[in-house]
C-alpha cells in the first residue's frame, strides 16, 4: 500500500463521515422501533442533541473513584475511533488500513469493554459490579465466535488485514459475476454463515433486544446500562457516543460481508458511498425488525443462542480451511 496524499485525505474524510453518521444509525433504529410500536417517535437526530447536551452538563464522580474513572471513558471512546479508522467502509484505503489486523480489531473491542467494566466497578456501587460481571458473561461467550469469524475470513482469503480481506472477496465476486469464471475466493455459504454468526454477536455486544434492553433501568434486565449507571455529564456522553460507534463498527463489518463494494479510486466514491449508506439502512431495518419481533430472552437462555453463533462461525472456518 502506498501512502500518497489522496489516500490520506479520502481515508480521513471516510473516517469523519462514519463517525458523524454513527448516532444517525442508532437514532434510525430507535425511531423505527418506536414507530412500529405505534409511538410518534423521537427526532431522528435526537442523539446528536443528547450528546451535545451531555457534554455541557456537570460531571459528578463518586468519592471512591480513582484515576481510572477519569481515563476510562476516553479510552473506550478512542478505542472505537481507532477501530473505525481501520475499517474500509466505502473506500478501500482506510487511514489505518496498514495496521488493520483482524486480531487487533477483535482485541481492541475487548479492551474497550475491559475499561468500561473497570469504570463500572471503580465507583464502588453495587450495580457496577453486577453490570460488569454480566457484561463479561456476554463477552466471554461472544468473543470466541468473533475471533472465529475474523480468522475464517482471514483463512478464506489468505489475508491478515481487514482491508485486504474484503478487497480480495470483492475482486473474486467481480470476476465471477462479470466473467463467469470460478475462483477459490467465491463462496455464498461461508459469508452467509459468517453473516448470521456476526449478526448474533452484534446483537449481544450492542445490547439489543433479545439479549439486553438498554431502554429500561430495571436491575433484573440490565446488562449494558448497569455499567454506565454512575456515569454523568461528559463521561456519559462519551459512553453513549461510544456505543453508537460500536454499533457502527459491527454494522460496517456486516455490510462488508453482505456485499463488499469499496471504491479504489476517486470516481467510484459516490456510488460506493450510496451503496454503503443503503446497506447500513437495510441492516438497521433488519436489526429493528429483530428487536420488534422478539421478546427479551431469559438470561440463562443467552448461551444457547451465542453457542449457535459460535458453531456457525466454526463451521465457516472448517469450510474455509477446506479451500486450501
Amino acid at each position, binding site marked *: 500500500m502506498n501512502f500518497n496524499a489522496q489516500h490520506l485525505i479520502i481515508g480521513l474524510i471516510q473516517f469523519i463521515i462514519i463517525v458523524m453518521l454513527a448516532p444517525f444509525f442508532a437514532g434510525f433504529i430507535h425511531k423505527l422501533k418506536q414507530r412500529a410500536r405505534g409511538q410518534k417517535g423521537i427526532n431522528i437526530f435526537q442523539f446528536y442533541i443528547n450528546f451535545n447536551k451531555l457534554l455541557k452538563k456537570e460531571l459528578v464522580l463518586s468519592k471512591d473513584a480513582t484515576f481510572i474513572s477519569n481515563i476510562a471513558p476516553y479510552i473506550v471512546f478512542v478505542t472505537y475511533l481507532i477501530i473505525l479508522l481501520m475499517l474500509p467502509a466505502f473506500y478501500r484505503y482506510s487511514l489505518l488500513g496498514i495496521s488493520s489486523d483482524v486480531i487487533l480489531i477483535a482485541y481492541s473491542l475487548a479492551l474497550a469493554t475491559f475499561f468500561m467494566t473497570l469504570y463500572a466497578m471503580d465507583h464502588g456501587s453495587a450495580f457496577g459490579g453486577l453490570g460488569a460481571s454480566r457484561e463479561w458473561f456476554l463477552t466471554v461467550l461472544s468473543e470466541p465466535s468473533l475471533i472465529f469469524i475474523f480468522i475464517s475470513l482471514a483463512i478464506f482469503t489468505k489475508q491478515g488485514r481487514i482491508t485486504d480481506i474484503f478487497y480480495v472477496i470483492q475482486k473474486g465476486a467481480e470476476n*465471477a*459475476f462479470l466473467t*463467469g*469464471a*470460478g475462483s477459490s475466493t*467465491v*463462496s*455464498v*455459504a461461508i459469508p*452467509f*454463515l459468517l453473516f*448470521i454468526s456476526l449478526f448474533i454477536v452484534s446483537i449481544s455486544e450492542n445490547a439489543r433486544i433479545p439479549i439486553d434492553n438498554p431502554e429500561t433501568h430495571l436491575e433484573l434486565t440490565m446488562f449494558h446500562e448497569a455499567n454506565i449507571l454512575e456515569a454523568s455529564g461528559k463521561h456519559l456522553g462519551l459512553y453513549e457516543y461510544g456505543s453508537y460507534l460500536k454499533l457502527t463498527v459491527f454494522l460496517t463489518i456486516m455490510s462488508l460481508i453482505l456485499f463488499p463494494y469499496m471504491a479504489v479510486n476517486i470516481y467510484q466514491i459516490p456510488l460506493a458511498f450510496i451503496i454503503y449508506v443503503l446497506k447500513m439502512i437495510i441492516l438497521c431495518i433488519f436489526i429493528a425488525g429483530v428487536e420488534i419481533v422478539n421478546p427479551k430472552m431469559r438470561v440463562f437462555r443467552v*448461551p*444457547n*443462542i*451465542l*453457542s*449457535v453463533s*459460535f*458453531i*456457525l462461525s*466454526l*463451521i465457516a472456518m*472448517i*469450510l474455509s480451511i*477446506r479451500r486450501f
Partner: protein
Amino acid sequence: MIMEKIAELFIILILVSVVLNVSSPFIKFAIKLYSFQSLMLAFYILMGAVHFNSINLYGSFAITIIFKVILIPYFLFKTLKKVKMDKEINMYIGIPEAVVFAGSLTLLSNLIAQKIIKTGITFGSFVFTISLATFLIGAMLMITRKTLFSQIIGFLTIDNAIFLAANSITHGMPLLVELGVLFDLFVSILILSLLILNLRRNVAS
C-alpha cells in the same frame, strides 16, 4: 457457476436449521425448522433438476415438497395439538453443550469425508460433509432428548441427510424407489404419531 453457489447456500441452510434445532427447546419450532429444512432440500433438488434437465429430479422435487414440506409437518402439528404436550423438551445435556457437540460432529464428518474422498473417486465433498454432519447431529438429537417428538425429529433429520447424500453423489435415486421410500417414511410418521397419542393416553389414565 452462480447456480452452484446458490445450491451451496441451500445446503448450508440445511445444516444451519439443524444446528438451530439443537439450540431450541421448543417442539413447534423444531417442526417448523424441519419443514424449512425439507424445503431447502427440495430447492437443492430443483437446482439439480434445472441444471441437468432431468425429469427424474423434477419428480423428486415434487414428491419432496408434497411429503416432507407439507404432509409430514402437518400431521406432526396435528398430533402436537391433540397431545397438548409440554412445549419444552427435556434433555440429558444442556443446550450449549449439545450445540458445541454438534459443532465437533461437523468437524468429525469433515475429517471422515476428506478421508473417504482421498481414497476414492471425488464427488461433491462439500455436500457429503454437510450430509454426514446432518446425519450425525440428527442421531445426536435422538440420543440426547427425552421427548418422543424430538426422537421423531431426529429420525426425520437423519432421513433428510440421506436424501441429501443421495441427491448429491448421484442424480437422485430412481423415482419409483424414491416414492416408495417417502411413502414408507410418511406411514411411519403416522404410526409414530398414533403411538404418541396412545402412550400419552396411557400415562394420563
